[in-house]
Every structure is written in C-alpha cells, then in structure tokens.
C-alpha cells in the first residue's frame, strides 16, 4: 500500500497539534476523575477503611476515613489535571498516568471497602502473578517490533506454550515442560517470521492467522485427546513459589516480590538483561537500526532478513515461556482458550511501555493490578456485579491504549516488509 510510507513520512509535521489535543483530553480526563472521586467516593461515604500492609491483622495497619481519603485523591487529580491542561508532563506523561491510576485505585478501594479492612499485600502478590504472562507477552512484542515486525500472534504463542507446557510437563517433567513450551512458542514465531518476512504477508493478518491456528489446533487436540486422558496427558502440577533467602525477609516488599514462582524471577532477570542487550550492546544497536531504518542498516552490511528472523524467533521463545505460566505456574492444567486475551493485553502493555522492556514490565503491572483488584473485589462482595469486575482488565486496556498510544512512537519501519533492491 502506497499510503503507509506517505503517512509515516508526514507524521512529524502532523504530530504537534495531535499531541496538544491528546494532552488536553488527558487533562479533562483527570478533571472528570477528580469530580467522580469526590462526588461518588467521598460524598455520602461513611466509615473508615483499614489497609493492611502486614502479613496478619494488626500488623502495619493504616486506618483512614474513606471520605477523607477520597477528598485528598480528588484534590490530587484536580491538581494533575490543571498541570496537564496548562503545561503538560512531556515525556513523563505515561509514568504520571500509571501512578495516578494507582492513586485512583486507592480511593476506589477506600470507597468499596468502607467499614472493612483490605489486605494490600495480598492484592499486590496477585498483581505480580497476574502481570507475569502479560509482561512476557509484552517482552515478546518488544523483541519483534524493535526489528519492525508487528507481532499480533503473541496470544497464539502464549496459548501454544500453555498447551505444550501442560502436555510435556505431564509426560516428562515440569522442567522439560517449560523447555517444550518455550520451543513451541519459537516454532509459532518462525511461522510468523516466514509469513511476514519471506512471503511479505501483511503482518497484522499473519499474526491473526497464528492466533486462529493456535486456537484451532490446541482446541482440536485438547478435545480429541486431552479430555479423555486427563491424568496421563494434562495434569502437570504447578511449580510452587520459591523463597529467595534474605530478600524475602524485607518487610512487605519481600513478601510481594521474592516469594513467587520461577517464572517471576526469570521475568525480572529477562527485563534487566533485555534492556541491557537492546540499548548497550552491538546486537541491540543492530536490531534497533533494522527496526528504524532497514535500508540504512542493510547498506552498512547488517543482514536485515537474518536479524528479523532471529529476533522474531527469540520473541516467540519468550512468549512460549510466558505461556507455560498459565499451565505450569498457575492453573495446573490446560483449558481451551485459557489465555483469554492476555496476549493482546501484553501488546497494549508493550505500547504503553514505549517499546522498552522496563516500560513493558511497568505497564504489565498496571494491567495485573486491574486483574488482581477484580479478583479481590469479587471476594469482598462490594455490590458490583461480577461480570463488570471481570471487564476491568479489558476496560483498563482500552483506556490506556486510547490515552497514550498516539504519544508513543513505534520503531519507524514497524509493520513494513523489507524488500531488498
């Protein structure tokens, strides 16, 4: 399509007014949230809420009047809205937005849990767990899109990983299950790479193909074979949490970050390693140059096709590993379509995180928090129908993507096949 290059080319001139408008919209969002928090959460709410930061009741409690808390939060939001409308936060917009969401959640919890006590630690432990597969999906996306291959197929790669992890994990061992899941994700990614790089299929369509194919094949085999042989093929068990000595003893934080399962620790490591590799090594520079300006990279002797194949494959490995979390790290068995859109949320996290591993992790935590909050609120029974609570992660995703996507700049050649002349 001729249009793509033209639009990408003209973006720098079009950007400024769009950014101004976006900042203005975001400012109005802050102001309306301030009004919402004040009139819904503060006015007419009685009673105190107790936030428990410790392991057991009475240990590190913080009791506050729900209505006072909401008023303070409303003032903060009004303040943020004012700044956003007048001068804007520039490059810190996303970080501020993320923090603001956390503050909003506080006010919301204060309102929902008025007269009750809420275990913050429990919520945050679940947040990290729920964020893990989303973060792996997002890292997989970062890996692929840094070399300008859009990966919509993350969902399918997670699902294949979950499936293979369950089967291999039962037949062989959970450890081999993780390895198998990783490789399965890689195989799916090679499929994407061949379609997108060799055959120059529209990358978004190629990714959707991967998703439909993964859903079809895992559901087919699951219903043909797994259902009848559940014990022999689909009961791998769960890899339990591991306590990291010393670090786990840090109050509050230790319980949240360092008593998780192996997937979470691999995630921390991978975020650090990937950030270093992408931005501090020759490999990273070459990868990024292929994503920004493949022709220049090619001229300088970098093999564009090989770099793309390799990085997309690595991205698939990451997603496959993350997929194993669903079966080996959380549920303990494979169910049809068990990823339920987590791959797409990961994609949104990648955009929210500005194509950076650390940003992707932070964004995944925001989505994980929405997920965790939803679970906690359905236990608390706050009078919101469970169906609406279940919508929360998806709603948050839409809001985030609508709020920041235009402000974030993808790799310049993202989504365009490379044709060597």
């Amino acid at each position: 399509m001729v249009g793509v290059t033209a639009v990408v080319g003209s973006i720098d001139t079009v950007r400024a007014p769009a950014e101004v408008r976006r900042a203005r919209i975001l400012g109005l969002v802050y102001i309306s949230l301030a009004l919402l928090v004040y009139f819904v959460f503060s006015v007419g709410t009685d009673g105190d809420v107790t936030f428990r930061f410790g392991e057991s009741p009475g240990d590190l409690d913080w009791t506050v009047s729900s209505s006072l808390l909401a008023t303070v939060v409303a003032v903060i939001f009004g303040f943020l809205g004012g700044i956003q409308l007048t001068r804007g936060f520039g490059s810190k917009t996303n970080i501020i937005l993320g923090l603001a969401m956390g503050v909003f959640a506080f006010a919301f919890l204060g309102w929902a849990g008025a007269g009750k006590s809420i275990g913050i630690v429990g919520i945050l432990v679940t947040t990290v767990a729920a964020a893990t597969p989303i973060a792996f999906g997002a890292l997989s996306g970062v890996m692929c899109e840094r070399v300008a291959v859009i990966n919509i197929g993350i969902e399918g790669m997670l699902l294949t990983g979950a499936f293979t992890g369950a089967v291999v994990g039962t037949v062989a061992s959970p450890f081999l299950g993780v390895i198998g899941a990783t490789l399965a994700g890689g195989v799916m990614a090679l499929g994407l790479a061949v379609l997108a790089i060799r055959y120059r299929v529209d990358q978004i369509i190629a990714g959707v193909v991967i998703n439909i194919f993964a859903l079809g094949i895992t559901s087919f085999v699951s219903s043909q074979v797994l259902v009848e042989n559940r014990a022999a093929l689909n009961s791998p068990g769960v890899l339990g949490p591991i306590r990291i000595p010393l670090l786990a003893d840090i109050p509050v934080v230790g319980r949240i970050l360092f008593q998780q399962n192996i997937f979470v620790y691999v995630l921390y490591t991978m975020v650090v390693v990937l950030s270093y590799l992408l931005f501090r090594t020759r490999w990273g520079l070459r990868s990024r140059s292929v994503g920004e300006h493949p022709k220049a990279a090619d001229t300088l002797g970098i093999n564009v096709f090989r770099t793309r194949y390799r990085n997309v494959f690595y991205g698939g490995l990451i997603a496959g590993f993350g997929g194993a979390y669903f079966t080996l790290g959380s549920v303990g068995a494979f169910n049809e379509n068990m990823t339920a859109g987590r791959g797409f949320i990961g994609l949104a996290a990648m955009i929210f995180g500005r194509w950076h591993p650390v940003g992707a992790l932070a964004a995944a935590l925001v989505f994980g928090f929405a997920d965790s909050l939803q679970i906690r609120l359905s236990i608390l029974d706050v009078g919101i129908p469970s169906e609406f609570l279940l919508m929360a992660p998806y709603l948050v995703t839409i809001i985030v993507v609508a709020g920041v996507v235009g402000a974030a700049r993808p790799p310049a050649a993202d989504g365009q096949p490379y044709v060597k002349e």
Partner: protein
Amino acid sequence: MTEETTTKETPPPSKRPRWLEVIAPRQVDWVTLLVIPILAVLSALIVGAAVIVFTDGFGAVLPAYSALLRGAFGGWQSISETLLASAPLILAGLAVALGFQAGLFNIGAEGQMTIGGLTAVMVGFSFDGLPLLVHLPLAVIAGLLGGALWGFIPGLLRAKTGAHEVITTIMLNFIAFRTLDYVLKLPFIQKEGRFDPVSKDVLDSATYPSILQWLPIENPGRLRLHLGFFVALAVAWFVYWLLYRSTIGFEFRAVGANPSAAKYGGMGVASTIIFVMAVSGALAGMAGANETLGVVGRGVPGFTAQIGFDAIALALLGRSHPGGVVLASILFGALRAGGRTMQAQSDVGIDLIVVVQALIIVFVAAPELVRAIFRVRGGKKQGQVTRGWSA
C-alpha cells in the same frame, strides 16, 4: 486489494467478442480472485487430511471427508443446513471486508454480533401483538443498531485518539461477552423460572420465517433455512453498491488506499473511519440478529459460535469483495454443516473444521506460498491491507 487502477495494459477491444468480455472480462485478475483461493482451500483440505492421519490413522480420512461432503451437499436437508449456516457468515464477512476496504481491521465482529443479537432479542420478545411485517424488521434494525454502537466505539477511539482498532475491538469482544452474561440475568430479560443466563423466547412475529416448507419431499419441516439467507444476499448486494457505485464507498476505499491523499482530496478521514466502523459493526450486528431471531430463538451465552472470527477468513478468502465474501461464506457454511455430519458419522471431531479454516487463511493470506507450491504465475502481488500502530 485496493489497486484496481494498476492494470498493466488495456486489451485491444476488437480481438475478443463482446459476450466473452461480459462473462470473463480480461481486466479481472483471475489468478488472484479464483485460482489462488481455490488452491488455498485444496491445500488446506490436504493438510487437514494429514492432521486426521496423525490423530486417527490413515483409514479415517476417506470416511471423514465423504461424511463432510454428504453433510454439506448430499440432499435438500444438507443444502438447507449449508445455506442456513452461510447467512450469518455472509453478514459478518461483509463487516470485516468493509473494514479492510477502508484500511481498518475489525476483529470485533464477534463482539458486535453479541451486542446486536442481544438487542435484537430484546425487541424480539417485547411488543406482543405486532404483525410479522413490522416486528421482524424492527428487531433486525435493533440488532443493526446494537452492532453499530459496538463498532462506533473503536471507530471513535481510532479517529480521535489513534488507539489501534485491532486492540480495542478485541477488548470490546471480551466486554461484550461479559455484558451478555450480565444482561441475560436481568429480571425483565431472563426467562421465567430459569436461573442460568437465558433470555425469554423471541416471539413468532419476530422470528425469521422458514422458506423451504413448500418443497415436495418427505417431512419438509426439517428444512431450517429461513428468510435471513436472502436478507444476507440483499445486504451483500447493497454493500457492493455502497462500495463501488456510491460516493461514500469511494471515500471508504480512498481512505483505505491512501489516507493522506484522501485528506488532501478534501475527504474527512476521521469521520470516514468512524462511519466505516459503525457500518461494519451494523453488518455484524445483523449477523447476530440472524442467529438469535432465526436459529437460536433466544439469547444464550456463546450464541455467536465463533462466526465473528471466521469472518476474518471470509473477508480474506473473498478478497474483501462482497461477491467473493458470499461465495466464501457458502463454502464455510458447507464446512460447518458438513462438519456436524462428520462428527456424527465418523471418528473425527468437528474441531478439525477450525484447523482447516485456519489453514485456509494461512494459504490465502500468503498467496506467495501458494504460488510457490503450485508454481502459479501471473496475477498481481498483494498489497498491505492493515496499518501499523502509528499511521
């Protein structure tokens, strides 16, 4: 898909008789339109056979495929079932195809169907005493509007904030499913005496009437084909007219082909995006109404039966052209109807159909792959259909 203008040479008009030019015009790229899709379907069926060999052994292939064929075209009832299944596929396929024509990828047909089917049911069980001629169109329009609303939201987000429709429509799918679960349990919607999410039954005056009862065969009551199939065909014709014969349709395709040029040509790109998504959602909403008013007769969770996702395959297979979508939908309808017979009469489960359909998309989406396997020459290269995050 959007490059009709780049035909290589104009054929000398005197060489070919006029009637041949009408039946088989030379400008039409037959390789892209017919040869590759047919080869893609063939390849998918062959790979599907390999999957059967893998799970059920070599002997299972022939019984499975012959049951598939029997269930799809073997007799009046099979044909009725095939066309019955193709009606919602046509409508949903058109929804996605319309989006592709404007450079938008609507993966949300499933959610738009869900909401459209739900609003159609709500009108369908209310208003007792209306005649069919009033009540049925009213219910269908309700479905259309419900779907349009669910398509309007991602269109608005895309036009005003740049949020990519691929992500927002998928998220709206999940939100639609939860909304359905919730609404079906509301006291004035839930069927009396039930505690699970099931709506009241659609009244007879809002049900698509069956149309094959006159056939001189034994027990014609089993033929479930209803008026919705012809409604779908009429809508397909309308979409063709809209896209290729109206100014609005020209703007749709112009925005799809080159948004910058469309903008400098004085077209409102943002408003076109919103309008396309709303119309696309409306088509999917009609598909949902077709299911709830014609087949299921009430609202239940999951009544959309993945039709909204098949729609993506249909739009690709039909090359985003309404006529192509109709043909592709009849093929997929045959696969759905035949798949049920295959499940009942052989050892192979109906999920194989999903695998075959996924393979069809792989081959259709990658024409270069088919060209390489079958050594097909000629035809145009496929351009890019969707846009990345920033455009």
